[in-house]
């Protein structure tokens, strides 16, 4: 038996939130750095990432700070907040449950 899981649209939308939250938790990054890193890895359009950063910051899941760059332009770094960490844990739990359930279905079919 596997646990009942509600796959909701929020979860689907949350995949990108999850990835961005995790990336910033692992390493504080400035905006364009996040955009480049994730768009290369996930093959997604670069201009979809900044709106998510802005939304997560408005939701107080990220906070920002500015530092001077040796190359000239100031850089705005993103750092995950406590609220962001809790949200990230929620997303990770949902994601892991979902993946486990999918694995269970796939393995059961293979066994049969």
């Amino acid at each position, binding site marked *: 038996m596997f646990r009942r899981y509600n796959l909701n649209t929020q979860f689907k939308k949350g995949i990108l939130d999850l990835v961005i939250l995790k990336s910033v938790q692992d390493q504080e990054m400035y905006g364009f750095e996040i955009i480049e890193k994730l768009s290369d890895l996930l093959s997604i359009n670069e*201009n979809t990432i900044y709106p998510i950063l*802005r939304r997560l910051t408005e*939701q107080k899941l990220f906070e920002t700070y500015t530092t001077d760059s040796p190359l000239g332009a100031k850089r705005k770094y993103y750092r995950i907040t406590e609220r962001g960490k809790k949200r990230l844990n*929620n997303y990770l739990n949902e994601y892991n449950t979902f993946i486990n359930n999918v694995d269970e279905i796939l393995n059961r079919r293979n066994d049969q």
Partner: protein
Amino acid sequence: MSKEQFINELTSYLKARNVIESDIKAVVEDYKELYGEAQDRGLSDVEIFEKLGTPRSIYLALRDTLSIRYVSSNRNKIVAVSPFVAIILFFIIGLGFNLYDYAWMSFLLIPISAILINVKGSDRIISLTPFISIVIFMITGFLFDWWHPMWLIFFSIPISAIILKTKNKDTVIGLSPFVITIIYFLVAVLINPEFYRYGFAMYALIPIIAILLHPLNTKRITMLILIVLAVFGHLFAGFVYDGWSYSWAAYLVPVIFGIIIGDITFESELGWRDKKQKSTLLSLIVIVAVYFAVSYLVGGIWNWSWIILLLFPMASIYIHNGIKHPVSFMPFIATITFMILGTFFGLWDYAWLVYLSIPIVAIVTDKKPGITIKKSKVLEEIDDDSI
């Protein structure tokens, strides 16, 4: 495109979408930084532009997180005050001068002020014509008893829409039924009542004008000849044999010819391409026909039967917008109700209250807040946040 151009375009685009200043400032600052960071990485302007997107794509992606200012609060205040101004005017004109026949028109200030303030460009003129028509119609009716043919003033509604919304051939073709009808009635009423009988032939000009404004081919030339012959037959049978009662049948010949050659689409090729245009014209014809039938058959009701004509702007609104904006029907419903209560029940003293239904419906059905602000699924998510 340079960084400065990119930032200017983004700023202008957000301003044009009524995004509030603080949000524009925050987004623009972020994009300045993103642009600078991308430059530090050695990307060219073209590459950066491709990565950051167009102002439009940025706006669409950010829309849920932006606060949008819908309308100016001062303007809304004027509209909100208009019902009270209308009531005061009503009592001043009615009580002060005992002119209740005219006083009720002060309530038309409510929709008129809303249109003047919130509707822009040519739509403003089109939206105002029903109310200007009512005022002119009522004043000339009361003062000079010109109920007929002054009802033709209501043709200003489709005429203004055709002049302002169509071009070239479509304008001429669209106007022709109204201009001909106006001439037909004015000549018959003001010059010679006999014109009602033979002047009817003028309506043949509508298809003739439409045909002549398009490239001629054999079918159209044949149709032209048949229409001219039908006019001749109609007038000949009428004048020579006094056969006005049957001579109109001559027009059946070009009509049947049109059907036989499959020219049902002929009309649509000649200007009435849009189903909505056809429905509007059809509703106008039906409503004017009902107006005349009722007015002539009952007799002595010209002073109130004109309310039937208000069904036309209502039908027009319904055809074009459905019932998306219930308040747009209210001035007409209120006027019809006012006239019915006053005429049939003698409740002129109280009937004016129905005009208060206009602002009430506007308030009840208004989905937009007075000043701003569409913030955002972001805040909803914060509220929902159970972490």
